[in-house]
């Protein structure tokens, strides 16, 4: 296990590369989804309000 993590002495470089890639990909897609849904809620709320008013 330690040998695997050590990556023949390149562990710090290898794991930083994999870690940064994973974090970036996951964060970008989750943030995009959360924002898309949040804006959709705003749109729906506005529609409802307009229906009630009008």
């Amino acid at each position, binding site marked *: 296990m330690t040998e695997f993590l050590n*990556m*023949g*002495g*390149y562990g710090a*470089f*290898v794991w*930083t*590369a*994999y870690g*940064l*890639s994973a974090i*970036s*990909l996951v964060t*970008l*897609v989750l943030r*995009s*989804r959360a*924002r*898309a849904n949040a*804006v*959709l809620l*705003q*749109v729906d709320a*506005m*529609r409802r309000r*307009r229906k009630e008013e009008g």
Partner: protein
Amino acid sequence: MHRFANPAQFNRLADSVMPWAFSVMVLTLASGLYFALFDSPADYQQGESVRIMYMHVPAAWMGMFVYMVMAVASFTALVWRHPLALIAGKAAAPIGAMFTALALITGALWGKPMWGTYWVWDGRLTSVLVQFFLYLGYMALWQAVEDDEKAGRAASILALVGVVNIPIIKFSVDWWNTLHQPASVMRLDGPTIHSDMLWPLLLVAVGYQAYFVVAFIWRMRLEINLRKLSVMRMNEVAGG
């Protein structure tokens, strides 16, 4: 106005593509990562540090691929004034910028132990950095100009101007001498990478393509919703 201007059509397409893209992404990335980390050989020169390549090379490919997506969208937007094309370019840019940044960072992390430096101003590294700045410039233009129509036009022109950088990135290692090695996979005389290493690389590359589809759909939805919201707000103001 336009046949495809209606986002409902896009939504229908996106809804049917999404589960497929998501499944392909999970399957290829899971198997690709398994092979990359556990079941592929160390390199005869680079040792275990070769595993960085499985993150670096697909990210670099995606940086260029997404740029071409953005450029085609910009071209369509400029010539045919297609509203969804404008949104498509805007939705793609952050994804491409992320992949380009990852290519630069993972490359530096490999370069330090192997080359002996994180960075060198050679033709390949410099032209990829230029690509990253082109993405940033494109996004900045969208932010900086108030009117979406004008902002989109300015950003699209920048995206098209930057297309010239794509062949420069690709052929920089052939035209000039660089520290960066020449191509190993996309070369005329066949790949110079052992099949045990090529497979995990291609799996991650396919996974990144599927990831792009998933991320792109969410960003399209976000941009479409934002546009809806701003149109409704404008109507509200106009209506009193």
